[in-house]
């Protein structure tokens, strides 16, 4: 989907927007390109649209530095995404997002629109529905629920 197409889309047709912060503890990162491949597959299939990306580093003293995706020396296939970014995150978002990071770590911040959910959300609005709650169920909560049902674990 082109940038022009996105700009002309009615706001009512916008899908829900999510974010995540993926931390890489010091010395634990192992970049093989696999993450990029999977991200691009989601974009190419029209499942998501990447809105913003930042790369954060937090030093041992807790100081945070943010880098744009365009600051990465060899973007490779990510170049296609970089040209479509909307720079949604503001400067004070960086501090808020970095609050979860451990000192000495680096992290990738990803903001995306769930294109797959947009038609359903739009249909719900046209039907008079209003979103009053949403969220994510942690796997830990599912485990706890199952164990509470069946402590023996059969």
């Amino acid at each position, binding site marked *: 989907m082109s940038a022009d197409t996105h700009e002309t889309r009615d706001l009512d047709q916008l899908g829900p927007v999510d*974010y995540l*912060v993926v931390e890489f503890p010091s010395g634990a990162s192992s970049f093989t390109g696999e993450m990029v491949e999977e991200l691009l597959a989601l974009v190419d299939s029209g499942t998501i649209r990447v809105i913003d990306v930042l790369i954060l580093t937090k030093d041992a003293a807790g100081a945070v*530095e*943010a*880098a*744009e995706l365009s*600051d990465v020396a060899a973007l490779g296939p990510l170049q296609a995404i970089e040209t479509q970014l909307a*720079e*949604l*995150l*503001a*400067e*004070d*978002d*960086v*501090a*808020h*997002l970095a*609050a*979860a990071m451990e000192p000495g770590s680096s992290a990738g911040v990803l903001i995306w629109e769930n294109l797959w959910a947009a038609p359903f959300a739009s249909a719900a609005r046209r039907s008079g529905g209003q979103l009053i709650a949403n969220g994510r169920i*942690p*796997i*830990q909560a*599912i*485990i*706890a*629920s*199952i*164990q509470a*049902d069946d402590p023996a*674990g059969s």
Partner: protein
Amino acid sequence: MPLRPARRGRVGVIGAPVAKTAVVAAAVTPGRSPVARTAVVAAAVTPGRRRRI
């Protein structure tokens, strides 16, 4: 590396400091194997399973 000027002076969208999400591995306490727990979770989200109320 500084942020782009467009990011400065704008109202943010995150709103408040973000708390660290629990790592899934932390929920796997000693006892049953992670593989067994995975199977349990898979069973819990299998189509056709009905809640007991």
